[in-house]
């Protein structure tokens, strides 16, 4: 790798790589190999494909490309075969031979690897036909499927770093900031502050040294778009940061990556080394007077470090505890110097805005929310994955048209957005447009983009307890209302889920929520009661049912349910008995089995293994549960 010394040389490098890509006559097998793909065996698939290519001496004809996540996690490991645009899902190493001999060499489609639509059942061999992708607008995520994230030349081949060359050649820092302001982009990390204005504050702040930070401490449980972007297209994030540093006048940058993301850390580090070697980072970038370099900071496992002032404390080598604002980081940030912090996805949008213009970007989305947003569509949903959609799309379109609806014919109950700071949105609000304003009016927030779908089996009191327990554990302890208040709320909620709730509990929860909201310094505390408040708003009856009737309609709260083998359905197959980890099931082959409720730990193993055709195991709650327990304890059963 030789250093690129000027903007002209960079332009030439980009054109050359684009030309090489266009002239490539090979069939390309693109394998999705982000963390999820690898967990499902995509690296073994790559190994098998490469082995067969070598054995058959097909190196000149077929090429395997190891890419980051394509977003369609449900179908992992998946392969896209180019130029035919054929999409194969759930590929196993043993499929490698036929993929090469049949499809890559002879254009024959392998039926069993084709995706079929979960709604219509229609087979869809081409990636472009798949309903999961149809309503998406993948301006940030889309390139993940085109490039090897560890090869900078691949990034050049998709016009990578062209925006940087445009900026350095023909824009002064103020022009860049005006473009970003005009685009209307708002922060993708949670708070949704206008990015351009933030840059302007940092630009105008007085200081000899200025810093920029990429917040890659993606802590919201259920959100992983930043991981995917860093793993799959790290240079786009770097390019955004370099442009930002130029606009703000920063000389040093940090990427704060959470330690739970080893592959993202690895790929970002590789990308940094490449950019440095080529002179895209360092002193006198591309022969200009602009000096800038980036450090990677590996987090140490703390949720609150995603809050900007905590994150800076962490980089300084201290406990990640937030502080009072003002002063805002733009005035006094890292080591007291003006600092600008943006989230990974925000940085990833910058090169696109420069490349395509602010008008183009502002044309996507709604009046108050511009561009696209990546959501992680997870939980009880058929097509799990990362979806990038224009702002303003409705929840219904995301969940049903893209996500394919709820699995196993279950009923949709709620969707949780915004992580521990967000809320649960019920069925009645499915036609809500997804933008900053509408979500906050519904009591939730956009947050970083987690979208967890819940069905009839999810208990909303349990979900509220889950989130409160999370924030309680992650509270840094600085503000008393957050530290002690969240603990009180968890205790009350736990009591309710155990069937020990009191009538006064709901009122107490509301009072505590109010105090915590007004008495906490940072976003963690201020928003921590939201999951309780939204579930109380939309699902109050579930709370009342738990308290008054000791009943959990979702059959999820362990202490409020019992498992029961229906005698008329049980065929005595022994499956449940064998699966029981505590030997709480009695019965001989071909005889009706019985659960010993005194021994049962309610793990649900029996429920899961009972064949669907038989489905002899039921769960009961409330009065029916009491009746069964009474009946079973009266009768004696032979062991």
């Amino acid at each position, binding site marked *: 790798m030789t250093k690129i010394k000027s903007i002209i040389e960079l332009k030439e490098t980009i054109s050359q790589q684009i030309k090489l890509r266009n002239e490539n006559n090979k069939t390309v097998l693109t394998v999705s190999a982000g*963390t*999820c793909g*690898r*967990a*499902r065996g995509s690296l073994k698939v790559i190994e098998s494909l490469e082995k067969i290519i070598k054995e058959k001496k097909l190196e000149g004809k077929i090429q395997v490309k190891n890419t980051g996540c394509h977003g369609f*996690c*449900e179908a*992992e490991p998946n392969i896209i075969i180019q130029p035919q645009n054929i999409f194969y899902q759930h590929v196993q190493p043993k499929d490698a031979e036929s993929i090469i001999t049949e499809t890559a060499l002879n254009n024959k489609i392998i039926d069993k690897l084709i995706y079929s639509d979960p709604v219509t059942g229609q087979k869809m061999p081409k990636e472009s036909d798949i309903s999961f992708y149809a309503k998406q607008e993948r301006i940030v995520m889309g390139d993940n499927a085109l490039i090897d994230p560890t090869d900078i030349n691949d990034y050049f081949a998709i016009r990578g770093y062209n925006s940087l060359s445009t900026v350095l050649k023909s824009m002064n820092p103020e022009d860049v900031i005006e473009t970003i302001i005009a685009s209307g982009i708002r922060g993708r990390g949670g708070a949704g502050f206008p990015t351009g204005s933030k840059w302007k504050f940092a630009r105008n702040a007085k200081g000899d040294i200025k810093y920029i930070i990429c917040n890659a401490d*993606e*802590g*919201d*449980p*259920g*959100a*992983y778009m930043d*991981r995917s972007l860093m793993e799959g297209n790290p240079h786009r994030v770097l390019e955004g940061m370099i442009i930002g540093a130029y606009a703000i006048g920063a000389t040093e940058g940090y990427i704060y990556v959470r*330690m*739970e*993301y*080893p592959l993202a850390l690895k790929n970002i580090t590789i990308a940094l080394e490449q950019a440095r070697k080529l002179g895209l980072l360092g002193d006198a970038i591309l022969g200009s007077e602009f000096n800038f370099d980036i450090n990677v*900071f*590996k*987090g*140490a*496992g*703390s*949720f609150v470090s995603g809050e900007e002032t905590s994150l800076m404390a*962490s*980089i*300084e*080598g*201290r*406990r*990640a505890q937030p502080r009072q604002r003002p002063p805002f980081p733009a005035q006094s940030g890292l080591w007291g110097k003006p600092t600008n912090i943006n989230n990974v996805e925000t940085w990833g949008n910058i090169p696109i805005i420069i490349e395509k213009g602010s008008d183009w970007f502002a044309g996507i989305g709604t009046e108050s929310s511009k561009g696209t947003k990546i959501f*992680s569509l*997870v*939980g*009880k949903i058929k097509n*799990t*994955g990362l979806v990038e959609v224009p702002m303003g799309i409705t929840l219904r379109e995301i969940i049903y048209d893209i996500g394919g609806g709820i699995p196993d014919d279950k009923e949709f109950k709620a969707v*949780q957005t915004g*992580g521990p700071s967000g809320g649960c949105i019920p069925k009645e609000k499915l036609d809500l447009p997804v933008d900053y304003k509408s979500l906050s009016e519904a009591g939730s927030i956009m947050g970083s983009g*987690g979208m*967890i779908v*819940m069905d009839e089996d*999810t208990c909303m009191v349990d*979900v509220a307890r*889950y*989130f409160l327990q*999370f924030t309680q554990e*992650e509270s*840094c302890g600085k503000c008393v209302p957050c530290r002690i208040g969240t603990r009180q709320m968890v205790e009350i909620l736990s009591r309710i889920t155990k069937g020990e709730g009191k009538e006064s509990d709901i009122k107490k929860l509301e009072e505590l929520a109010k105090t915590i909201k007004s008495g906490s310094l940072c976003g963690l505390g201020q928003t921590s009661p939201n999951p309780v408040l939204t579930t109380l708003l939309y699902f109050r009856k579930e709370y009342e049912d738990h308290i008054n009737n000791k009943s959990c309609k979702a059959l999820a709260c362990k202490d409020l349910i019992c498992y029961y083998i229906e005698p008329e359905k049980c065929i005595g197959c022994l499956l449940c008995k064998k*699966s029981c*980890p505590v030997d709480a099931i009695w019965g001989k082959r071909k005889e009706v089995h019985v659960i010993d409720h005194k021994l049962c*730990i309610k*793990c*649900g*193993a029996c429920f*899961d*293994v009972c064949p669907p055709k038989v489905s002899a195991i039921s769960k009961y709650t409330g009065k029916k549960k009491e009746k069964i327990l009474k009946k079973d304890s009266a009768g004696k059963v032979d062991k």
Partner: protein
Amino acid sequence: MQKILAEFGNSQKELIHVLHRVQAKFGYIPPEAISEISRHLKITESEICGVLTFYSAFSLEPRGKHTVTVCMGTACHVRGGPKVLEEFERRLEIEAGNTTQDKQFTLETVACLGCCAIGPVVVVDDDYNAQATISKVEQILEKYKKEKKNDQD
């Protein structure tokens, strides 16, 4: 220890990097390392303890040969992650956050691994197990117990 410290500068900003390095090298932060770090970075031992106990990455006690991490993210939660954790606790006879007596396994939870599509997720050392269920728990542990047996043979 001195060799490790020589890789780093002498200011507080190095502290978390140093702790990561020591944790990786020894599997925990030995008490005697704290005073050496304190001298090298010119900050008090109490400051170091404050930082290292704040972050979940660092431990003051040695960990087991294998670390079992069960994801407690929201997506894993709604798909049964807590049940999987309970089964690990039951089989290993320890609560999350602890190490088995034979020092084979440390059981931990993590807020979210960001692999929500394949939850519940269990990671043993660097090995990701997708869609874990209670019945898979034994299988997962068996694999590592066998290794122990083979080592002894």
